């Protein structure tokens, strides 16, 4: 019995996911042949009539070329590769060259030379070929694919060729160019450094022939490579499950990894990198690198925070770095030791130190608020962090929340208050309703400068201002003066209603005051009934 080689060939050709995957295979062949460059050109020639053209796709390398023995024993012999230890792509399976047929060329012309021999092979669309010697010396290998088409297809083909080269070969350690000759734009280089661009920090790793770069980036896209050729790319969590298990979902939401190792290999179907013990071990080996990356991120934040003078760019960096750090809050041990925060005074501070300063459990966040407000906060035991609330709120709340600190903009935390006339009857009635609940000493109507509209009032803890952010617990209000903002809608309405229904106005005020705290409200109903 013999193997039906034609059927086998068709099966193998049919496995290539894209008709342009042959470019990846030919680039790999060139690298295996020791070439330091691959040039790809798309030419368009006149066809048999006006609406038809002939496309010629040329792939040229400067590698070692092939002699007759290689041609017969490997190129035109399925599974005949000598690269038995190479399991990259199809190369390890010895079927790389046949991928050219997936593009459905009508002719493939291959010219190659090695050690003084030069050969030309012409493949027909039925996969049969003619082999002829060439009298002139040839170096390297040139593959020319010919196919008929319409002129309008050229742009699409050129785009697909360039896409395929960039997808698979952009990290290749050789010079690869593509020239859509008809466009007259000249050859374009297909190259990209392994280190990702536009990332806050990255850490390189190397062990033997394996190397990797880990970084934190806007999108968690990772790439698995072998000898610079892309095997698979996609979401980091999907591509690196073992690393993901160790790193946690949050880290994988911004981790960018590029891992290049001879231990990675694809299956015959090339629908992904094969799961193997080697791959698992490779991923596990990256776990310490991830720890280094986290440390590098913390280091960058500390470095920025310690910078004496800040400008807008520094503020942007601060927000950006902390947005990444937010995804690592749970993964970095003793994060509260590091000076990753900056007080409004410009002093670096750690989360632990901040928590110790925040006597009320409140931290204010200030961008460029008046000094007077910051002084009020300072005297009231509210530390003020530098930050832009509209931008930084998510990470500040997440970070401070881990220490049960409440963060809010400075203008919502404190206010500078100026006393105005207080309606005595309404104040008295309200105090009597609250007497058994939160027991404030007195009430004072006032004008609050710069506080936000929903601030009902505050408690004076020191100096000329009031704290508006603290929850109005009985512990806070007891024996203290409660300031109410005269222009708050409830206060305004209560003052107006007090003329006709002072008891209901007082009830309304008392209810509004209790809505800011945690005291039991049932006591208010009882007080009201007692009132009646």
């Amino acid at each position, binding site marked *: *019995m013999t*193997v039906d080689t034609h059927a*086998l060939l068709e099966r193998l050709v049919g*496995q290539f996911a894209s*008709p342009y995957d042959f470019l990846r295979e030919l680039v790999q062949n060139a690298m295996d042949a020791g070439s330091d460059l691959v040039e790809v050109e798309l030419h368009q020639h006149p066809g*048999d009539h*006006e*609406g*038809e053209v*002939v496309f010629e796709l040329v792939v040229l390398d400067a590698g070692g070329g092939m002699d007759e023995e290689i041609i017969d024993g490997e190129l035109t*012999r*399925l*599974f*005949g*590769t000598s690269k*038995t*230890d190479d399991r990259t792509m199809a190369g*390890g399976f*010895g079927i790389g060259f046949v991928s050219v047929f997936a593009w459905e060329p009508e002719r493939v*012309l291959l010219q190659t030379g090695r050690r003084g021999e030069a050969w*030309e092979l*012409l493949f027909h669309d039925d*996969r049969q*070929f*003619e*082999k*002829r010697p*060439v*009298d002139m010396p*040839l170096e390297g290998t040139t593959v*020319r694919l010919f*196919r008929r088409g319409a002129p*309008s297809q050229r742009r699409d083909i050129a785009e697909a060729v360039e896409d395929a080269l*960039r997808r698979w070969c952009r990290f290749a350690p050789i*010079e690869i160019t593509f020239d859509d000759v008809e466009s*007259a734009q*000249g050859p374009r*280089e297909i*190259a990209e450094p392994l280190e990702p661009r*536009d990332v806050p920090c990255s850490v390189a790793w190397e062990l033997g022939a394996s190397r990797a770069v880990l970084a*934190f980036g*806007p999108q968690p896209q990772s790439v698995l490579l072998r000898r610079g050729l892309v095997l698979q790319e996609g979401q980091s969590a999907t591509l690196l499950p073992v690393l993901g298990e160790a790193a946690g979902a949050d880290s994988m939401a911004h981790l960018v990894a590029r891992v290049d190792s001879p231990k990675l290999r694809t*299956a015959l*179907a090339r629908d992904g990198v094969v799961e193997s013990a080697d791959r698992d071990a490779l991923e596990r080996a990256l776990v310490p690198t991830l720890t280094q990356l986290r440390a590098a991120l913390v280091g960058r934040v500390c470095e920025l925070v310690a910078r004496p003078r800040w400008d807008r760019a520094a503020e*942007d960096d601060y*927000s*950006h770095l902390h947005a990444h750090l937010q995804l690592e809050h749970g993964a970095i041990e003793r994060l509260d030791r590091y000076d990753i925060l900056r007080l409004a005074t410009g002093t670096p501070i750690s989360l632990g130190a901040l928590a110790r300063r925040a006597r009320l459990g409140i931290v204010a966040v200030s961008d460029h608020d008046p000094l007077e407000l910051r002084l009020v906060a300072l005297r009231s035991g509210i530390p003020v962090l530098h930050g832009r609330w509209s931008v930084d709120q998510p990470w500040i709340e997440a970070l401070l929340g881990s220490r049960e600190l409440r963060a809010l903009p400075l203008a919502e935390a404190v206010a500078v208050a100026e006393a105005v006339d207080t309606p005595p009857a309404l104040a008295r009635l309200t105090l009597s309703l609250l007497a058994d609940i939160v027991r404030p000493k007195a009430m004072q109507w006032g004008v609050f400068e710069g506080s936000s509209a929903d601030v009902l009032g505050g408690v004076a803890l020191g100096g000329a201002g009031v704290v508006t952010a603290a929850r109005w617990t009985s512990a806070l209000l007891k024996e203290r003066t409660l300031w109410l903002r005269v222009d*708050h809608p*409830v206060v305004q309405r209560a003052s*107006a*209603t007090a003329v006709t*229904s002072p008891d*209901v106005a007082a*009830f309304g005020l008392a*209810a*509004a005051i*209790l*809505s800011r705290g945690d005291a039991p409200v049932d006591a208010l*109903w009882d007080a*009201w009934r007692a009132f009646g």
Partner: protein
Amino acid sequence: MSALDARVREASLAEGTAAPRRSFTASQRAGVLAMRRGAVPWQFSVALLRAGLALAAALVAKARVREVDGHRELRFDLRLACAWSDLDLAGLLEASLRDDPRDDPRLRWRSLLGAAINGALATDPRWLELHTPVGGRRWAFDAGAPPGEDPYALQRIPSDVEAGGFSLRMAHAEGVAAVWARWTGRAGPEDEVARRWADALGVPIEALAVREGVAAARPPAAGAIALGSQGRWWPRPDGGLFLRRDGVRIADFGAQVRELGGLPLHGDVEAPSVALDIDGQTVREDAALHELIAWMQAPASDDVETVRLEGGTSCPVESLRAVDEVVFTWPHRLTEIQGQGAVVVNPLTPAQVQRLRERTPASIVPASLLRSARGLQRVDLTSLHQGSIGPIALGEVRGDSISAFVHRHPVADQGRVQVHGFGRVLIDARASELPGVTVIGALEPRGEDLEPASDHADAIRTYAESRGDVLTAAVLEAIPDLATRFRVPWFAHRWANLSPIDLELRYAPHADGVRLSWRDDPLLTTVVAREGDGTARTVADALERLRDAGGVVVAEGSGRWQTLESSVPIWTPWRLTSVGSELLVRVLSDAALWRMPMVAEAELRPCPLASQAHVRLEADRAAELRASLRSVGRVAERARCALLAHALWARATHEDAFGLDALPLLSSFDPQSAQPRRLVSVLDVAGGAFAGVVPRGAAHRDLGSSVLEVTPAVAFALVELGLVSSSTVPVRTAPRRPSSSASQRRRVWLRQRVVHPDAVGALLLAEGPGGVEIWEGGLRSQTLRLPPPYGAVSGRVWMQQGRHSTQGLSRLLLQSAQMMADEARRARLLSVPGSSQARALEAFLEAIRAQPQPPPQPPRIAPVLGSDRLAATLRFALGRAVTVEVSRVSWALVRDDENLEEIRVGGLHPLIRAAREDGAERSAIGVAALAILLALSRSGRLDRVAYDEAAARVLAALE
């Protein structure tokens, strides 16, 4: 020889005639190793069963693990009855590369047994033995095998089994459990085998005792339903629908059948024509699968005489013989084509199709082949024939004949390209390049494939454009009257576009220098002028006169210039028609029309300069003309021509040029420059900066380098003087150095994957224009631009086989774009500040923010239960319609709930009771309302701002 073969020959470096044709060969040894590397764990145990069932209809298989001499041995024994003669054990592993279910059973046994052994060797045993009645083989691990070679050495061994079965044994040096645990992550080889065999045989795993023996048998032919040429089906009342190969189950494709419109079917199917994907475990959707489904739903045993139509009616299949065409679909695919046209699509079973094909000469048309048709109704071309010139045979594109119709009516100015198949319109595309023309490509059915390539319309359009002269010639032939021709949109379009570039007006090298030449065009026969004696002159005559005389003498009005009119025929004045006047200015340029009064003999002509002393100027006349250069219009133009003529003549004859060769008298065209046209001097030209000469109006941006735009006489003179080359072919620019990827590559800021049964791909926020490319069949079919604010989104989506509409696709893409916007908000902060990515994301988000939001939906009006003043107060306070329910048995002020749509208050609570009493005071109602609001705030159902607003309203109501 075709153009393609000519290109191949040109690129060829080999000498001599064609060499003998060869075929690929296969390295079976390496192939075996490659397949071994890709082996699926434990699949070899199923291959073993298949091998046995290839030989016998039934067998008993055992699998056991035991300790032997310090090794763990896994042993398979298969007992079966068959003739063992003619079986061959040579090259078993190589035989595994062959996989054809139609092979002879003995060949099939070898293929499957080879695959089983190869798969088993992937577990790295120390040795593996095969014992059969025709001999034994042993594969022993050889640690010294060279790299790349099979590490298993093959030996012949005596077999210890006799007729009645075969046995496979494999031993592992270390604990076999550890090997399998490492290899598969699972425990217990016997359990794994049992699971695989249970799946393959369709029996519960609990019913299998692999150590004692598992009975396996090919399904008996008796219970099978024949499925025509497709195979056989053993129906079952429930369970999956399994494709069987070699007697065992390969894949459950019941869900796939239902997805394709089939009924829920169960049982086992043997169908050699059904193809599997490369993984060998998924059934491929193709015509064979659909036919198989049709057979299963209506086996041959069903009634073949009656066609059951939609709605329950039926008609005899014989009645279909009376028509010339029967369009049919398999019944399970009927819904796919509903609403696509008024044509009758008959839901026929495969048996009925067979019957019709045997008995009727009608064309039996599968509706599936017309899936891409815009409608299933056959197209009626009557009106097209009546209102057009045509059909005009244009030739063939890809083997399909192309014809065109040129619309006669002036309002029928739309151009279209249609691809027809089976008389239906498969593709109907606009063709703005062919106004007033409908081009039809008739697709010839080739086998079962009638799907036009996505670029087919493009190819036809391009081809039809190239045959535009044929269309024009047809108009000229059909309509003799010039005025009527201009009512034909195609003719008017061609006439309006006739230009030096369109005519390919150029200077071609000639024996004496250069000579004006052009492309032939039917429009050149159009009469544009008459001479005094009434002789008609065409566009071609005008071009010839320009070429030979350097210009056309034109007389305007009815006046005669007896003394100035030349007696030389080529200078006989023409009187232009109205259309000719406009056209000749456009094609020949105004400078080439020598309008009377003028002396034609004094003009520079396209002949040697030495013979043209008539262009010589006196010094004072030259000064006079130089002064005229400061004027505008024809005066300056005439002056420039005369001065240039003298300058050129003087240079040729070495006479005094009066410095005219330094004057900017020649028009140049630099395709690289923002303002391409400027005047240059003869001395500038002598500097060698110009690649050649082109006729006036013929320069364009695609030229490779700067040229001079001149009349034929000046072109002749410049070439004669050696100031420019006789060739005007643009010199190709030298290949540029490869540009860096950073400057050339299109940068992608954000990528959103699109994964859907109909389409896969990705949307991008990237450099360059927006628009999502839709690709089908390997080529782009269209580009969809998403509506604001997603206009900047680009990307590429590959359509999958199946049904889809543009509307549905747009919806899918829009959903993906919205997901992309969510991702952009996250990625914006994670991007390095100031980076191009951050800026791009911010711009994208800004566009979304700037998009006007839809007005808020009005609040849902709910009926007020237990209507009272408290409920009204609460609705007023909250500014929304809420339902207030009063529980008569609850003491709680407000029941804890999740929303504000319904507020349930306790009727027994003192505050509520007081508020609901007859004649309750406003204060009681206000206090109750304030108390309820406080309770709602405390339970998180009202935020602080909403609470304050509501409380203020309650208080306001009491003022």
